[in-house]
């Protein structure tokens, strides 16, 4: 049986991690169908059809799908699941919210946040904030899988031409009402997919001081991250949090500034290719994962860092 991929989108365009989830789905079985659920999503649906690994697109439209409520999404996916061996989507807040609701309806034990497909029924996933890896075999007839997007490369996004099949909408779930979404708009790259991330922690001491990080991030074309301590202290909004209960990032370069390196933070960044730590406490655990450690006061080091960057003739973007 084929694999059903749940497309993530905002009714305008596909969200980028759909491509990573499509890669994982295609590693489970070459026959990947994708379901897109929402309202007025013609462009997103077109993008989905163009993904070469997607062989068929199932399209479900309805006003009650506009805000991606799991209570509305789950019944229609459960119905479609009849024809599929696996249901797959990203383990971001969209998939985390939705997939267990589907799995429970299907009486299936979900396998969350996999980082590798070992075989169609066996997967590798991190546990204990990534301090151990578990190999899990699912014996359920239908498998519900969420994938860690940063552990799978995005697949090709153009060249395909999957046919679209319309699917009837399910009834509206009336006990949940969407009120509003406050998205933080930024011209910077998305944290989850950025090539460089500059992150600040409690050592930043205030939200204002984050401008030292913003300046460098803009110079490098980087996204801005933060430790939970910095978000809890109100220095920066929650969508910047990197770690076990925030986002997992795997950039080419991760610069941790004033972050001590609690295991919960390391869980979200220690797979980065190159890690830089700037901290005045030479004993801080962040240095144990850093390729380049600088023991220094960040309020002196960051302005110097900016000066040094300004001296460079070229900066990779």
């Amino acid at each position, binding site marked *: 049986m084929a694999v059903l991929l749940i497309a993530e989108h905002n009714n305008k365009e596909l969200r980028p991690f759909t491509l990573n989830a499509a890669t994982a789905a295609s590693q489970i079985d070459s026959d990947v169908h994708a379901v897109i659920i929402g309202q007025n999503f013609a462009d997103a649906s077109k993008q989905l059809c163009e993904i070469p690994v997607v062989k068929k697109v199932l399209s479900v439209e309805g006003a009650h799908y506009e805000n991606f409520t799991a209570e509305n999404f789950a019944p229609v996916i459960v119905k479609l699941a009849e024809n599929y061996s696996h249901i797959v989507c990203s*383990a971001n807040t969209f998939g*985390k919210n939705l997939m267990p609701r589907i799995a429970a309806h299907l009486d299936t034990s979900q*396998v969350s946040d996999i980082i590798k497909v070992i075989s169609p029924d066996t997967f590798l996933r991190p546990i*204990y904030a990534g301090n*151990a890896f578990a190999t899990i075999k*699912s014996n359920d007839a239908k498998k519900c899988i969420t994938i860690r997007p940063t552990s799978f490369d995005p697949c090709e996004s153009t060249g395909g031409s999957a046919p679209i099949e319309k699917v009837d909408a399910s009834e509206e779930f009336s006990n949940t009402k969407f009120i509003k979404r406050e998205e933080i708009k930024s011209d910077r790259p998305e944290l989850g997919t950025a090539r460089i991330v500059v992150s600040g922690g409690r050592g930043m001491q205030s939200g204002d001081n984050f401008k030292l990080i913003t300046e460098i991030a803009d110079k490098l074309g980087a996204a801005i991250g933060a430790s939970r301590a910095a978000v809890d202290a109100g220095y920066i909004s929650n969508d910047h949090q990197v770690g*076990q209960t925030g986002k997992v990032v795997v950039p080419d370069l991760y610069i941790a500034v004033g972050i001590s390196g609690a295991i919960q933070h390391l869980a979200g960044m220690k797979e980065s290719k190159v890690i830089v730590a700037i901290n005045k406490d030479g004993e801080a655990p962040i240095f144990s994962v850093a390729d380049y450690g*600088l023991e220094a006061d960040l309020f002196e080091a960051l302005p110097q860092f900016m000066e040094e960057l300004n001296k460079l003739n070229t900066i990779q973007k």
Partner: protein
Amino acid sequence: MKILVAVKRVIDYNVQIRVKEDGTGVVTDNVKMSTNPPDDNAIEEAVKIKEAGKASEVVAVTVGEEKAQETVRKALAVGADRGVHVKVDGTLEPLAVSKILQKIADKEKPDLVFMGKQAIDDDCNQTGQMLSALLNWPQATFASKIDVKDNKLEVTREIDEGLETIEINVPAIVTCDLRLNEPRYASLPNIMKAKKKPIEEIAASDLGVDVSPRLEQLKVEEPPKRKAGIKVANVAELVQKLKNEAKVI
């Protein structure tokens, strides 16, 4: 309103876990255990709602072995009224836990069920959503703010793009983020008082629920270690290394 709060006993968040040499799991003998951190937020929120006069009773429930009762006792010490301990041997998958909680919800008839958004041991992030599917109740996951309004809740959820606000009718499930509140510490007199509060013990086998495992854990291993890095003397050296050695800027 009656609030049921599910709590789980896990390895303490400060413990650096060790993988067993035979690859069957992680070492739990002589390791400090405590309540799953966001479950503490769930209890705190329920108690705050009761203190504000908007809830009549807070019941703490755990599903676990003998010692899991400590987490219920701790919930009682910070303000829960009574406890339920569903006894099981070994660890259950979130699907099995949610089926047990469904039975408890059928019996207790709460208006709200709270729990942490994720357990920090298996990092599954499933139980609340599964329970809400089984009960066909609304779910407000990753909650960082809850406003109780008569028979509705307005909940702010932390999502990847920022914040989302939804309104849900009770009965409903809420899974709590660490930012929802600041859990209080139990005072010594309250710890003493909690010892007198009732905890009902129920054998999972008496609930008529299929809790058999669907997943096999074939192996648990250490993640690959990063090779040790170097300390640089100053910012100029750092930038030079990033440019010419790591070639990332």
